[in-house]
């Protein structure tokens, strides 16, 4: 049976090729971090990854069903791993890793790995947002260039995601994009690092964009792409273990590496917005600790909760970005006053936006206090 893609944006052979590798990465997820480390070093482990890509490509266009294709790819790869283990000049840690991965390949299945991760995340995110939640549909498609224009060697995260705007009142679409290089037929660089980064990418979409109530979307928003991205990381940290305890260490690690990759890109407006938004969130967190006397964990969750609530307030993104612009240390007295009110349950989150965009207070949040 020829491959049939469940995603209109993915050609059947592309789907089959991704499925085979994702199935292998899922089966070996407890060793993904070490796998990535060894790939960076090159040598035998990098070669076995290339062999996996080759086999996935080989079986992508074969006239068999998905289960059979995945099984054949795994069989071929197990044979390759066994052959590699026969090498005399093999680093002991690489040998151990390859042996471990070969053992883990006994339980590979061909369930859609993208949907599995997405479904787990949406279950948690919908609990955060309650009635404001939009039911999201996952789409997977390919893009013709690396999300950040980098080489896979320096930035192996060849995946990105977006939520097209505006969404429907009750529904949204989350599009996962995987870079596919047109120079090479049937080839892409979807590797273990990209697989491990899927949970944070999809968490970002579900926390920051799916339930958002605002007038527009902007990649340069310090609120939507900065402060809320920080909030998404807080929730990813909470959810990773519950989503998949075996994938959690690699998911957490690659979420952090991806954060570093994205935050150091202050040469782009998007990178600057992310960085300023993250700094604003940290400033607010410190304020909850210092001024309200909350513990460090409660303070972190308080920022997350305020972010979630502000995301549900139907106001312009400019208003929400303005709130972020006020979060410079120390906080202006007028803003402190309204934040105390919110913390003590006397004021809703919308009051924070009411205050900061009030005509008398725009740009002068401190002076009127």
């Amino acid at each position, binding site marked *: 049976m020829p491959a049939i893609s469940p995603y209109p944006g993915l050609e059947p052979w592309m789907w089959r090729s991704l499925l085979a590798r994702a199935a292998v990465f899922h089966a070996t997820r407890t060793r993904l971090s070490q796998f990535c480390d060894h790939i960076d070093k090159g040598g035998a482990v990098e070669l076995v990854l290339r062999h996996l890509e080759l086999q996935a490509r080989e079986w992508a266009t074969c006239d068999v069903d998905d289960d059979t294709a995945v099984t054949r790819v795994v069989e071929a790869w197990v044979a390759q791993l066994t052959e590699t283990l026969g090498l005399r000049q093999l680093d002991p840690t690489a040998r151990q890793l390859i042996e471990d991965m070969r053992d883990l390949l006994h339980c590979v299945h061909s369930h859609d790995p993208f949907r599995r991760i997405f479904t787990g995340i949406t279950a*948690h*995110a919908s*609990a*955060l947002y*309650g009635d404001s939640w939009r039911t999201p549909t996952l789409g997977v498609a390919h893009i013709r260039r690396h999300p950040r224009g980098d080489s896979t060697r320096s930035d192996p995260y060849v995946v990105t995601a977006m939520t097209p705007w505006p969404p429907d009142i009750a529904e949204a679409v989350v599009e996962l994009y995987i870079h596919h290089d047109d120079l090479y037929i049937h080839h892409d660089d979807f590797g273990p690092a990209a697989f491990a980064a899927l949970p944070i990418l999809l968490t970002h979409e579900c926390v920051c964009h799916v339930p958002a109530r605002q007038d527009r979307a902007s990649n*340069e928003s*310090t609120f939507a792409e900065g402060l809320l991205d920080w909030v998404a990381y807080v*929730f990813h*940290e*909470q*959810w*990773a*273990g*519950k989503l998949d305890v075996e994938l959690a260490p690699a998911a957490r690690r690659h979420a952090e590496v991806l954060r570093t990759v994205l935050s150091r890109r*202050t040469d782009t*407006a998007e*990178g*600057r*917005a992310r*960085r*300023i938004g993250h*700094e604003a969130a*940290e*400033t607010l*967190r*410190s304020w909850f*600790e*210092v001024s309200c006397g*909350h*513990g*460090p*964990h*409660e303070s972190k*969750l*308080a920022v*997350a*909760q305020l972010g979630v609530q502000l995301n549900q307030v139907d106001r*312009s993104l*400019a*208003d929400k*970005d*303005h709130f*972020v*612009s*006020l979060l*410079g*240390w*120390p906080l*202006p007295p007028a803003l402190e006053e309204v934040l105390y009110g919110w913390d003590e*349950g006397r004021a809703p989150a919308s009051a924070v936006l009411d205050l900061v*965009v009030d*005509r008398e207070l*725009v*740009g*002068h*949040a*401190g*002076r009127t206090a």
Partner: protein
Amino acid sequence: MTVERVLAAAAVLREFGLAEISAFCDEQPPRIVEILDSVATAVKPCGAERWRVVDLEAVRREARRRTVVDVLSRPSPEEGPGARLQLAEETLKACRGEPSPDRRRVMVASAMNHLRQVLAATLPGRLPWWTVELGTDLLVDELRRHPDPVHAVRLQLNVAVARLAEGNVTGNPMPADELIETVARFRDEPLLEDSRLHGLVGGLVDLATAQESPPVEPVDRLLVAIARRRARAQVDRDHGAALHALEPLLRTLGAGHAHPYIHDLFQTLGRLPDGRDHAIVYADLLKVVPAQLQWFPTGDLLPGALVEVVAEPAVSLHLRQCARTLESDLVHSPFGSDTALIGQVAHVFQELAEEHAGLDDTVVSRTDETRSELLRLAKAPIWPPAAVPDRHPQEGRR
């Protein structure tokens, strides 16, 4: 740590269902219920799988009891003000294309907040950032002392642009004398040609020419729109020259209320003893004059748009005819925006060129250049004129 996390989540949520608190912590639901049961005097059930915190302090105490006390610290300082300063600049730049006056106002306020934070980190004394006043000589003096001279100019330009933007959106434009003085301060700055200052110089020119309310008559609107856009476009070629050309433009624009515009694209001021005419004319019309006819520029009435010329009577006749064609088209213009108005003029220019092509075969090529330039100017984003004072435009009312 697990108990601390669950109780911290309870303290933040105050009243919650099991799914909600589960999303706020890393523990599985059965364990969460167990932990909540262990603090039953402080967290009471209030429905099926639902709880309410009744003693917040007790929950916090219990959460902290299990936590190693953290040393509280201020957030780690930024590596430098670069990203925030750039964000402030980009936010102000983005205001040009923002159609909603309310949103533009909020965006300017956000940019000023970011700028104040950068300045507070730069100035001595570590002032609270929101107390940094942008309109003081003291600030200018302090910024001049910055060890990096290009950065010093950049910060001063940022302050000037932010103040102009604030005046623009609040309807309180900078007084004309102060505006001229501000431009003069940067005009002879030797570091101004640094490419990093390009956007800021553009913003300064753009906002400086947006201080006055736009004229009502279509002809005057066209002239001011073209003059403003040409001044802005000159920044792309030469920062210093753009600022030098700005002062006379500002003086003319500022005098607009005292001396209303001429409402004509061509007007004869008088006849010279040698029989030639002294006239003022919309500058682009001179491109339609056949090459064999003589005229000489004698001054700029509105730099970039209106020039004074001395011309043979045949030139005057030709210019008058072309001007009337344009004016009659503009009078019936259905377009409200300056962009559309300029586009309309570019279209009429094509008709004029075709009409006069028989007189001189260079007219078409010269007019084509003008048309292309006008279309480029029409598309360039530019700050809208200053808001009307004490009026708060509503969304979508434009």
